[in-house]
């Protein structure tokens, strides 16, 4: 019986050039390699799906990267076909493709639309070209506008725009300008990230070498963060996860699965799956994947009940609505307060968590230092 829901994630580890802050598994590649990779994806799906598909109904598909939109559109749609051929899809299945401005045109978008892609996610990051250059982005704001207008024209009405605060040299005023400009476009969804200096990125090397980066001060950075929610709220965008905002009913179904411990199957090099409380992380090795996608190497992590309960909390608390006591009890057969009561009451008393009787969730003050608090939810 196909009543359990499943998300499918397809990883495309290619991009035109690597941005200085990016720590995702991705690298530039030639067209031939990319086509081989898309073929390999189809082979992997065809071989793995029969073991999974029977129990599930797929209600979200997400092409992430990298930049899925730089691959050949027909090739990419073959991958979608492979999914269609192997899985049962729900009628309202959310199908998202991540796009970079300047890598899409009307023709490409029409092919996506035609195949049933329902949602696009554009990596804009900033409306200020200086900031874009600083980040190593390959596009200007004008390029973005062209892509965005093309998408609207093609009929896409469920679009996300990624923007970034905390960029070197950025002021709170410059950030508000980015926010207001994006808001005027009325996308269904906005992801607003604080720049994080991740290990192993060129940005981190610059930082460690002592180069002056002119990063906004912590106070400015937090001002930008809190401005985001209040400014977006003016136009009806709800804040539903630490970095995600949407119009009513337009939350990203696929991503919500990650935070609520839904099940998902990942295909491609570097993709992760979580099925029946086992996490599978496929090796981040593109040539090996192309060579033998059916036997691609992966690591498994079998999650214990304690792992699952910890994840329930530290992922669930990323959502603004927080974690729900009933759902915890139904999932684990235990009371949340018997497991985490001490930590919850400690941080409720300090004003970092709030408790409305049903749900536990972060206060504004709590979000700012959420890692510090979430660490205490590990068992």
């Amino acid at each position, binding site marked *: 019986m196909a009543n359990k829901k499943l998300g499918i994630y397809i990883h495309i580890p290619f991009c035109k050039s690597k941005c200085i802050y990016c720590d*995702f598994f991705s690298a530039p590649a030639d067209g031939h390699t990319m086509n081989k990779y898309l073929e390999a994806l189809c082979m992997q799906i065809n071989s793995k799906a029969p073991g999974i598909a029977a129990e599930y109904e797929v209600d979200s598909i997400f092409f992430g990267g990298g930049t899925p939109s730089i691959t050949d559109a027909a090739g990419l749609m073959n991958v979608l076909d492979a999914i269609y051929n192997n899985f049962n899809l729900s009628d309202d299945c959310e199908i998202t493709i991540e796009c970079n401005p300047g890598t899409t045109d009307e023709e490409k978008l029409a092919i996506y639309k035609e195949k049933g892609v329902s949602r696009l996610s554009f990596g804009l990051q900033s409306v200020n070209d200086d900031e874009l250059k600083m980040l190593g982005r390959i596009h200007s704001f004008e390029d973005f506008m062209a892509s965005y207008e093309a998408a609207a024209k093609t009929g896409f009405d469920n679009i996300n725009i990624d923007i970034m605060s905390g960029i070197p040299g950025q002021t709170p005023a410059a950030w508000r300008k980015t926010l207001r400009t994006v808001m005027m476009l009325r996308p269904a969804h906005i992801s607003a990230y604080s720049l994080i200096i991740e290990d192993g990125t060129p940005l981190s090397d610059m930082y460690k070498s002592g180069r002056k980066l002119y990063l906004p001060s912590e106070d400015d950075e*937090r001002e930008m963060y809190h401005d985001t929610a209040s400014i977006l709220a003016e136009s009806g965008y709800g804040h539903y996860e630490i970095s995600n905002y949407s119009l009513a009913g337009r939350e990203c179904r696929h991503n919500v699965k990650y935070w609520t411990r839904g099940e998902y199957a990942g295909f491609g090099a570097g*993709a992760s799956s*979580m099925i029946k409380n086992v996490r599978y992380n496929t090796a981040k090795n593109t040539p090996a994947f192309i060579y033998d996608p059916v036997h691609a190497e992966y690591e498994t992590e079998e999650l214990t009940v304690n792992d699952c309960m910890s994840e329930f909390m530290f992922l669930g608390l*990323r959502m603004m609505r927080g974690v729900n006591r009933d759902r915890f009890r139904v999932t684990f057969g235990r009371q949340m307060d018997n497991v985490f009561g001490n930590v919850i009451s400690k941080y409720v008393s300090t004003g970092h968590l709030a408790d409305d009787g049903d749900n536990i969730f972060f206060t504004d003050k709590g979000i700012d*230092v959420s*890692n*510090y608090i979430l*660490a205490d939810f590990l068992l």
Partner: protein
Amino acid sequence: MSHIDQSKVRNFCIIAHIDHGKSTLADRIIEKTGTLTSREMQDQILDNMDLERERGITIKAQTVRIVYKAKDGEEYIFNLIDTPGHVDFNYEVSRSLAACEGAVLVVDAAQGIEAQTLANVYMAIDHNLEVFPVINKIDLPSAEPERVKEEIEDVIGIEAEDAPLISAKNGINIEDVLEAIVHKLPAPKGDPEAPLSALIFDSIYDSYKGVIVFCRIKEGTVRKGTRIRMMATGAEADVVEVGYFGAGQFIACDELSAGLVGYIMASIKNVKDTRVGDTITDAMNPCAEPLPGYKKVNPMVFCGLYPADGAHYEDLKDALEKLQLNDASLFYEPETSVALGFGFRCGFLGLLHLEIIQERLEREYNLDLVTTAPSVVYKVHKTDGSVIDLTNPSNLPDPSEIDYMEEPVVDAEIMVTSEYVGAIMKLCQERRGEYMGMEYIEGTRALIKYVLPLNEIIYDFFDALKSRSRGYASFDYQMKGYKQSKLCKLDILVNKEEVDALSFIVFEESAYERGRKMCEKLKEEIPRQLFEIPIQAAIGSKIIARETVKALRKDVLAKCYGGDISRKKKLLEKQKEGKKRMRQVGNVEIPQKAFMSVLKLDDE
């Protein structure tokens, strides 16, 4: 073994300033005398604890017996007693010297005489040892053997004209040293038929054999079956085995007679019964008088040792018990701290001894420790006439009950080239030194004498000395006694709560300065937490300094999607581990190393 001819025995030690090549020369002597093949030699055989090899110093006395066939065709027995090389162990050094007739003085051909050279030579001369100098490192480009010889004659007043010129490292002229040992150092005396008297200069504990006593037989003879008595402790035991020291092994023999150096095993359970400096005699036929010079050594420096994880208290206790089996000078007793829970107040001969014990506990016993700042022993004279030895600052009585306090002081000798005399004198003044005089040595170098409070030198004095003299100053000290002083207790409050383990005793006039620096240091050490944390220094109820650790402002993961979860979870786990390594005091988490902050209040 048949009878040994006393006239063919030489008991000697090697004395030197640190790094002048003492252990290297010992290695060469052992190598040249053929008790070991070159292949068996590991560098610096006598320093056989890992720690000693790493630090390049000798901690416990080591002894080896070797046979040398001299140029006169005779075979000589050499007993080389390697002495500890640090002022913490001065008493042990003096007992090792008392076991010898002679000493080889090693002086670096480039550096010449240093403070420790003098201290060691004077100690050897005090013990009536025959001393002859050896000039080492003559193959260095900067070597000036003639100048150094003159210095030795002028400053120490011993003949140096025909001192062997050697390189211990490269094995140059080692034969000259061996011949000089034969011809310049006297043979031991003593009557093998007289009542037994033997000097204990070290002992070790072996879990199979019990205590193994290292001794020098002054008079009489000891053999298997002799019932021995330790004259100071009164302990008695029957000798199970006697023998001498091969390189790295014990070699049993029938008897040890007057003039020889060797070991005695007698099923003794505790090194406390065999204190260094005590006299062993025959319980059935005791000697009239114990040998002179015995004293019970008292710990000079105390600190609290706590298990980082309270659950390991018993492990720490076991480890201390085991270490004490081998180290009678280690003292410990249980104590409790509000901040740190259950632990021990431990006493040491000095800061080096403390560090060694701490490292051994961590390495050999795998313990994670929180160490509180070391303190010297203060004498608190109360108004009711009683006197307390204060080893833990938080036990200081209420000021209204204190008449006056005394602190330990040392006689310090610092040797430095004349250009740094000003800087060093300034340092000694800052450290409350009392100037005692200065002598110039051959015009360019000075020997400066000060009386200094021990608590001013146990922490970072040596480092300060080195940095203010560009590494040229050398330093040695002797305990002098106690001196009245204006002292007070400085308390530290973290988030308005007093942290007992951070209190320390300080000279009244330095209290403001030290309090301020302590607050600054703690501000660096304590990570930002969810709320603002005031750090205050106080004397009694009076706050004298304050710093603030600002609240944590931002610690948030912007992104966490499917592919990130494993990695992000590891980050959170690391964060959780970090929290575990901190001590919860009130609602503040204090890192373990913060409890040592007082040690790092560097002056410059």
